[in-house]
């Protein structure tokens, strides 16, 4: 009797749910990327939806008739709010639009210049969207980027995602996820930075490129960082590891490439003469990966000269970023305010109202310490023996 009642209870428990919220995977339209543009009265949303059947290895379909068919489908819709635009999309899509697999959110410059609160409110509120999505700003129409067919990857979002993921290899572009962006955006003591996507041409075909970074100030896009300034930002955000710096050889001025093996930056705050001052301590370890000068970097003096050269390049990079933040945008993207607030709570209360002015004029010391523990396997430059025998100095 007990068992019968147990089975009954279980059966009722299960059957009464009636598969609520169940949806088969092939009834979904997987959105891989979305682009936000400005429309006359609100937003224009462009979604790149994967055509699932194109992902099957054994599509036997009509022999070669539609061989060049794109594996994705780009649709767009307008709305006064983002959510309205999203729901308007349902009128076009036969399948339920599924937002959990979004890789990249691309936002048009004009839209980003206005209040971005509206945009990110939707993205942080909706449970179907994940926070591990990349954020990028573009100058042209964002929706167009989703229609650029990449040459290597199957579809645009995979292309953009992979480009963003390895942004720090070149050290000239910045990448950030929605989660971190929102963190910085909601932090009252600092301003956020996002990636920047531009469209260039390769072999007369439009191609996307990640370049520089976009700076936000008080909830709107303020401007762009150039490549050097972006590298300084990567140093300050401790994202530089694995990147490279090109250094002029201290002996003959020819370029030497250093791979950054370790890079760590600390920001310290002080109060000097009643105003906040900051000290940036950067510690780096590099490895020589390429040299076109003929110097043999296998003695301590040569290496320490190279270390100094690298230190001054890093110093210059960081300085340019600090300058851009203080002078060009007067936006605290470096987290100076956050650092000062946590180190000097009492003083912060007095100066916080005046912070934007104080930030602009704050004194910043930059200290760079570089170590080159190794110069890779090939210690000598690759030159024929006669020239190499005359080792300079």
């Amino acid at each position, binding site marked *: 009797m007990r068992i019968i009642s147990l089975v009954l209870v279980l059966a009722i428990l299960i059957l009464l749910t009636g598969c609520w919220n169940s949806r088969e*995977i092939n009834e979904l339209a997987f959105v891989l990327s979305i682009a936000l543009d400005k429309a006359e009265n609100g937003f224009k949303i462009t979604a790149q939806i994967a055509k699932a059947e194109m992902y099957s290895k054994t599509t036997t379909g009509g022999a070669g008739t539609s061989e060049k068919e794109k594996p994705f489908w780009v649709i767009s819709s307008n709305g006064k709010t983002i959510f309205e635009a999203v729901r308007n999309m349902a009128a076009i899509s036969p399948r339920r639009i599924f937002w959990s697999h979004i890789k990249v959110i691309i936002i048009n410059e004009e839209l980003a210049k206005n209040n971005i609160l509206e945009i990110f409110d939707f993205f942080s509120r909706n449970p179907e969207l994940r926070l591990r999505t990349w954020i990028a700003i573009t100058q042209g129409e964002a929706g167009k980027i989703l229609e650029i067919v990449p040459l290597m990857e199957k579809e645009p979002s995979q292309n953009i995602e992979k480009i963003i993921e390895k942004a720090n290899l070149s050290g000239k572009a910045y990448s950030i996820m929605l989660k971190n962006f929102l963190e910085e955006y909601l932090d009252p003591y600092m301003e956020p930075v996002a990636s920047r996507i531009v469209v260039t041409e390769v072999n007369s075909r439009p191609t996307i490129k990640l370049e520089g970074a976009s700076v936000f100030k008080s909830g709107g896009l303020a401007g762009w960082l150039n490549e050097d300034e972006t590298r300084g930002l990567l140093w300050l955000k401790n994202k530089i590891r694995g990147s490279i710096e090109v250094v002029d050889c201290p002996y003959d001025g020819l370029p030497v490439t250093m791979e950054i093996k370790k890079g760590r930056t600390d920001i310290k705050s002080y109060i000097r003469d009643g105003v906040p001052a900051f000290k940036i301590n950067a510690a780096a370890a590099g490895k020589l990966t390429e040299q076109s000068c003929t110097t043999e970097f296998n003695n301590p003096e040569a290496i320490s000269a190279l270390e100094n050269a690298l230190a001054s390049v890093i110093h210059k990079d960081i300085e340019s970023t600090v300058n851009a933040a203080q002078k060009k945008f007067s936006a605290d993207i470096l987290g100076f305010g956050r650092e000062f607030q946590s180190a000097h709570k009492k003083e912060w209360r007095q100066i916080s109202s005046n912070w934007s002015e104080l930030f602009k004029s704050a004194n910043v010391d930059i200290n760079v310490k570089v170590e080159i523990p190794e110069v890779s396997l090939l210690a000598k430059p690759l030159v024929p023996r006669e020239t190499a025998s005359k080792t300079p100095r």
Partner: protein
Amino acid sequence: MGDKSINNEFKILKRKKNSRAVNGADLPSDKNSALYKSVSGDMTSNIEAIKKVMGNPGDIQVREFAIICGIEISAAIIAIKGLSKHDLINGQILSSLMLDMRFKDAETVNEVFDRIKQNNLPDVYVNEEANIENIVSELISGNSVLLLDKAEKALVMGSQGWKERQVSQPITENVVRGPRDGFIENIDSNIALIRRRIKSFDLRVDSFKAGTQTKTDLYVVYLSGIAREEVVNEVKKRLGRIEIDSILESGYIEELIEDSPLSPFPMIEHSERPDKVSAAILEGRVAIMVDTTPFVLLVPTIFIQFMQSADDYYERYLIGSLTRSVRIAAYFISVILPALYIALTSYHQEMIPTPLALSIAASREGVPFPSIGEALIMEATFEILREAGLRLPQQTGQAVSIVGGIVIGQAAVQAGIVSQAMVIIVALTGISSFAIPAFNAAGSGRLLRFPLMLFAAFLGLPGILAGLSIITIHLCGLRSFGVSYLDPFISADKAVLDDTVIRKPWWSMLYLPGIIARKGKMRMRPGMKPTYRTKNRKNDGNK
């Protein structure tokens, strides 16, 4: 052949008056029935009585002859064809009785009887019987009976011998490395295989009988001093309450003495490997051997035992541990993989990595069933194929698997009835369930797979969690002969924990499992880890 001292014969025959009778226990109440007679002085009437009790069977052999000594005595030897050794009766018993003149000066029948018993029967088992009932039961167990005219008792001679299978490789439990012998259908050969391995004075072999019709022999085998007395007594007690007409396989006993008869999990382990049974006995378990079956029951049983194979202990411990963890993983796969697939593809698409989600979606493109329907179809097909392949003769069995694999797998996918992903899932599940050494434990996984799939289809991952919770709660409550089924994960007994997911090296398993054997029994002297090399180096240095 065997002499079976039936010292513990069950009192089935003396049934209670009020209880319902079991077949065969229902002896005639007529006091004048031939069964209750004792041997009378008249040999012919005795033979008739015996034949009458057995219903004058066709396979009974009666050889009447005369013994000539001081007096001439007519005698008869009765045996059952096929159950008794013909050459023993002919060549030794009959010839010694007919030709041997050692008792020729005997004057009375009783004297002749005693002389024959003392001097003339070259057999280990010779017994006097005066009761027709006992004589008949000796006859049907293969012994032969010598009746002398005018003697009021009979001589029973051990002459059991019948055709049986040779000791051969066990079919259900293959090992890569390890002994190749397996139990056969004869309990005495089987106990000999154990005794060959355990030459200990402490090995106890207690004999029982069960089955009113079959009168099957049972042995309860254990090591006294290692096995717990309460377990041994409990086994005997539970065997004692069995009242059934037949025991044809140890499965009958298993179902009659197990702790939780309604559980989907096997509560008693069985094996047809003498080495495995010996190892269990040495660990303090009690083995229940049943005549006419090669499968020996081992109690108490804990769940992790079903994941252990004899190889684990013969291969080096690293390989043993690897294969064992593979098996445990396979068990979990075989239980939850289809459910997980259903839950992920119909509720939690966000949890699948994008490329995988897309290719699953691609493979499900155009499939008319929801994933639960697809899964049930494929699982049912797989179970049918497995069952068909199992029962058919080997050559046909292969054909079935080819037809099943190619036709169902390939054609169903191409026809768009099931998705490729589901074929992969079902195949993986099926193969995983074959990786588990114990067929009965694998069966529990097969059984639980279906409710879990339904849970997943109705409730998604929370459903799977609920289902697994129900299973876990059930498992936690199970006990087998006083030992928690989930031990050692409940009692955390170190000696058993050393031998669960990983099998520690022999030199580190110092103690016998304390939850099964008596507490604190050492398996070996501590410090058995080989350290020869370092010692030698030290010695070299000293020189």
